């Protein structure tokens, strides 16, 4: 039982991180916090890919004399890409947050929607607004 738990420990933590990240994304209204949640959610995927690539007793996939068990390099490459995608998304999201803060004076979703400005309602659309 404990044995089984430990062999899958990586996956359990991965799942915990994923759920926590997703929880932040859905539960929190603060836009910065949400982006941190998204980042957590994405980084849990890194573990999902990297854990199976590890071979116990192996070494990093840099070929050298005297080693013959190496970790699988492919997931490493995929996750490098995923990390870059993650930071790119974060940067763009934060730029949006800064602009939203300038336009609304708040970064709380609840306050933006409470302003009577919920996105459904079109009653008070100014013709042209914000900086072009």
């Amino acid at each position, binding site marked *: 039982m404990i044995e089984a738990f430990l062999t899958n420990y990586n996956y359990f933590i991965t*799942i915990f991180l994923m759920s926590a990240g997703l929880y932040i994304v*859905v539960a929190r209204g603060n836009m*910065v916090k949400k982006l941190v949640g998204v980042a957590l959610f994405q980084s849990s995927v890194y573990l999902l890919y990297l*854990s199976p690539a590890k071979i*116990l007793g192996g070494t990093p996939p*840099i070929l050298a004399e005297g080693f013959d068990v190496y970790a*699988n390099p492919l997931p490493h490459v995929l996750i490098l890409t995923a990390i*870059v995608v993650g930071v790119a*998304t974060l940067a763009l999201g*934060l730029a949006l947050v800064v602009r939203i803060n300038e336009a609304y004076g708040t970064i709380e979703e609840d306050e933006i929607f409470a302003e009577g400005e919920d996105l459904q309602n079109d009653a008070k659309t100014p013709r042209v607004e914000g900086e072009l």
Partner: protein
Amino acid sequence: MAETLINTILLTLLALTTIGVVRTRNLFSVVILAGIYSFLIASVMMVLDAVDVAMTEASVGAGISTVLLLSVLYLTKTHESVPIRTPLLPLFVAFGVGAMLIYGTVDLPPFGSAEQPINQHVGPDYLERSIPDTKVPNVVTTVLASYRGFDTLGETAVVFTAGIGVLMLLRRRKKKQDDEGGED
């Protein structure tokens, strides 16, 4: 055994940091915790023999992301308001995804074994072919730049897209020399 032990401890710390991130309302602390999280996950990656990834995560997750988050906090505010929404839906979503993942991952091959499909099928080919094909010993570089070089082109394009997107959103045409301190 030592590998497994270190792995377990680091992962537990990771989980604890995550709880901290979820519970903290001071955004400054959240950002610092997220930085700690990134360093921890980079250490886990070291244990998992993913050195290139660990290096990237340490510089990107703990470095660039933290700088960006801090500069945004400087431009906005550092405290999160209490959300007025009910926690039921989020809990449902989180547990639903968690349950689905448990369902999906319980039967995955055990940790650290060489006898699983990914360590049998394409992965070993890269290790075998890297030297004859390219004479490059770091297989991650070979796969990144050559075998899956097109993914890396896409990745560079993603960075490019985000860069131009941020510039479109934030760049000011005329720089105002007065209200800038430049430190954040």
